């Protein structure tokens, strides 16, 4: 495992190992994404890594239209993680245009060649 002080390497290695890790400033409590050597805004460097719950809420969503022979339509969404940060991702397991703002979603990790492991989401089953 790379050093936690090499933010991008550490993040990617953790993702490959099945964990979504986020950085948090010990003094300010601010959790942020993407990995950096300091917290945005404050510049705080007293950072620790925390494991994300994987739960989040759809902040916005779009369906990117694409011809079927090129792979068909797909979803692109912004997800507000329960820990605070917002990330770009895709909601799967549902028609792309049925994803709704405010929908609760749960993360999983998948390989998206050639980019390596990435975070994807699926709707949380209604209770």
């Amino acid at each position, binding site marked *: 495992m790379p050093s936690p002080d090499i933010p991008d390497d550490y993040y990617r290695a953790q993702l490959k190992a099945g964990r979504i890790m986020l950085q948090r400033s010990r003094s300010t409590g601010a959790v942020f994404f993407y990995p950096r050597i300091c917290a945005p805004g404050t510049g705080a460097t007293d950072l620790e890594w925390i494991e994300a719950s994987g739960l989040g809420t759809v*902040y*916005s969503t779009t369906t*990117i239209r694409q011809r079927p022979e090129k792979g068909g339509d*797909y979803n692109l*969404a*912004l997800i507000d993680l329960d820990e605070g940060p917002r990330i770009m991702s895709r909601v799967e397991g549902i028609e792309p245009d049925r994803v709704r703002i405010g929908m609760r979603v749960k993360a999983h990790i998948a390989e998206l060649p050639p*980019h390596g492991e990435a975070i994807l989401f699926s709707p949380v089953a209604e209770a």
Partner: protein
Amino acid sequence: MTHDLRGKTAIVGIGKAGMGGGATGLQPLDLLAQASLRALSDAGLTLADVDGLFVSSAYHGNPTLSAAEYLGIHPRYANGSMIGGASFVAHLLTAAMALETGQCDVALIAYGSNQRSQGGRLISLSEPQVYEVPYKPRFPISSYALATARHMHEYGTTREQLAEVAVAARQWAMLNPEAAMRTPLSREEVLASTMICDPLTKLDCCLVTDGGAAVVMTRADRARDLPKKPAYLLGCAGEHTSRQIAQMEDLTVTGALQSGRRAFAMAGLTPADVDVVEVYDAFTINTILFLEDLGFCPKGEGGRFVENGAIAPGGRLAVNTNGGGLSCIHPGMYGMFLVIEAVEQLRGEAGARQQPNVNIALAHGNGGALSSQVTSILGTADTL
């Protein structure tokens, strides 16, 4: 309390190239040079007078070097800052500072793109956004689609209201012989157009054209002696918010909120003083967002504000009077054309689309994924 720079410099020449929307077959620097020579001629100046050069480009990593060499000039002050399509509005402020501090005496701000001739490919020198590309965003439209979806969710903005923006732009373009798209367009046609990235259709998107544009600036004392009616820079200010759309704090509020407030404060004016409004309409949502953030209507009311032809010719506010990026011209980056249309309106040179008694014009540039915003306010001699 207005700013020291208010009215100290003016746009004294404007030039355009590649108008009409067709593929020119020219290279980006050819178009930049054509526009530059026209702007200098308009100003009654020559290339030999230019000692300040301001260029931004997606084609050139060192845009001022490439442009200066092509033009055969040796500027003593140059600035090639790249903040996307807002760059050219931002250059107005940098040029004003350079002129006022004596770093240059004649500033040329110029742009050229042959995006249409190159088959519509959006040239980008941008670094890949490594945390976004795995999800295959379609830059730039998917970022704007996400902002649109959120605005609709929070404020009840409708696709019909977005279509009103496209229709108004087309109606202005029909009054502009240089505009690329001059056939009538209905709201229904916009709604029935091919969906590209929900909720944005093809007709919610700006054009893909070639084009060049340039303006020449001098200090106000010299401007008064040049042939054309000067357009004085009364206020200009910017704001960066984010680079990637996922990093933008609130997709319904842009940095135009801050850039607009600062520009109005610098000019000592309010939105009610503005006679014509030129905002960067890369997508229909842009016009709505910027009318709200610049203070022409309350936040969330932009959709309702544009209804019933309110920003079309004869409406309550003249917005994007050349037809905008949606229907006039959009060569990769549109920012310089906003300023040129504002100047034409201030001079009274806008032909059939000329608005009566224009003394104050606002030109607002946007760059990236709603990333950078720059607001400029220009005025006639009466506003000094």
